[in-house]
């Protein structure tokens, strides 16, 4: 399929867009993706953030959502302007918007690194982390047309979600 941004090149990268409460997926070519990252390469994080934010918002005109953090009172519009969050609660209250943003900045949205020494994850945390990791791996396998591995990840995912009795994603 063709890139939804330029309409010329083959789309290979997908971004999940959450706009106005609706989740859609946009597919871009590497070039258009790179264009967004270009400003970042020059150290202009502000420019990168606002370009990603504008791409994320352009799939559909976002309502002037009055989303405000219950912890610090920062509005999502403020964050879009400054690129800085106000507190840890912002990550939870804006999670619908932040997850796709983090995904597009980092290419992944599940932490894989160190944890505080005192932190003990609950079984539910462990499961959620595993699900998210498997989804990531499945997407990456599909993107590189490695369907055999993708099927393996899918089966594992299915098992995990059935075990917990949760609904199929």
């Amino acid at each position, binding site marked *: 399929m063709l890139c939804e941004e330029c309409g010329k090149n083959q789309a290979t990268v997908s971004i999940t867009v959450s706009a106005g409460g609706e989740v859609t997926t946009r597919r871009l070519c590497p070039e258009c993706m*790179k264009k967004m*990252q*270009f400003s*970042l*390469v*020059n*150290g202009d*994080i502000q420019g*990168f*953030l606002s370009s990603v934010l504008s791409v994320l918002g352009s799939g559909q005109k976002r309502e002037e959502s009055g989303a405000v953090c219950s*912890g*610090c009172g*920062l509005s999502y519009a403020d964050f879009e302007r400054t*690129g*800085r*969050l*106000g*507190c*840890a609660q912002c*990550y939870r209250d804006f999670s619908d918007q*932040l997850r796709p*943003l*983090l995904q597009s*900045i*980092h*290419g*992944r*949205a*599940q*932490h*894989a*690194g*160190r*944890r*505080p*020494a*005192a*932190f003990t*994850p609950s079984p539910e*945390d462990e499961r*959620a*982390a595993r699900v*998210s990791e498997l989804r*990531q791996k499945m997407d990456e396998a599909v993107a590189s047309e490695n369907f055999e591995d993708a099927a393996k990840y899918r089966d594992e995912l299915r098992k995990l979600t059935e075990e917990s009795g949760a609904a199929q994603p």
Partner: protein
Amino acid sequence: MSDTAVNVVVSSRVRLARNYFDLPFLNWERPENARLCVERAQAALCGGDESYDLYLMRDLPDVERLKLVEKHLISRDLVERADTGAALIRHDRRVSVMINEEDHLRIQAIGSGLDLEAAANVAFGVEGRLEAVCTFSFDPQLGYLTSCPTNTGTGMRASLMLHLPMLTRYKQMGNVNQSVAKLGLTTRGIYGEGSEALGDLYQVSNQVTLGRTEEEIIEAVTAVGRQLIDMELSLRARCLKEQPLDLRDALMRSYGLLRYALQMDEKEFMLHWSHLRLGAAMGLLPVSLNAVDDLLTVAQDAHARRYAQETSPGEEADAARCDIIRKTLETNV
């Protein structure tokens, strides 16, 4: 490899962004929180077997703040947060903890040569001492939570300061920037505005902080560093083989100017400094790499201004800079 790496790598640096779980990020609006941020870090780090000095930005004269920036111990952003910003700096100057910068804490460890792993271990050690007293903002899915989403996850930035005069001269840096960006890393000039890289000095660092382990990040930056070292060294060998006279002439001219000039602005200094380091690394100039790397700090503007204040009040920074350079080169013959 490791012994030739110093010919290209000036330093390895690892920085961790951390926030206390119970305070909002935006502390410059809340002086009482900002004070708490300082007190907690001080309680955790001071009075142990390592000694730290506390620098409060508001108590520090402008020139002293800038000297810390020139030493890469604090950032310009911290200087701009003069009313709440602070830094705990370990006596050996290999560790600094910036407080109330963009995040509550920015733990930074610097080492010379190519050794990000060692720098990371030092930073994790400092983090451990802080963690014994404080709890950091952490989410099982998103990792360490930071004020800017570009740091979320590990909160880690691993960077190498590289001296790449030949890659610059042969106009390869554009290609390097492009291929490095594909790996989730970035290169940028360290000194100078926009795209210019004064002194041919570049920083290579990870851009991505979420979804990779700290080890993966360090491996990626180190691998790119090694590749750039190889490319740079082979271009140096090629240049020496193909244009020995041109190369030695350029290096000797810069050396002569640095030894005998009486005034020099920062930009001109950086130009000749690059030749000086290249000459030292290739054994073509009578000066040690350590002395050259020292000059990079002590001959910058704030250091030169402070030196003038102390030794000959009224002297211009550009003249003081030449005094400093001359002294270094005379004692390093």
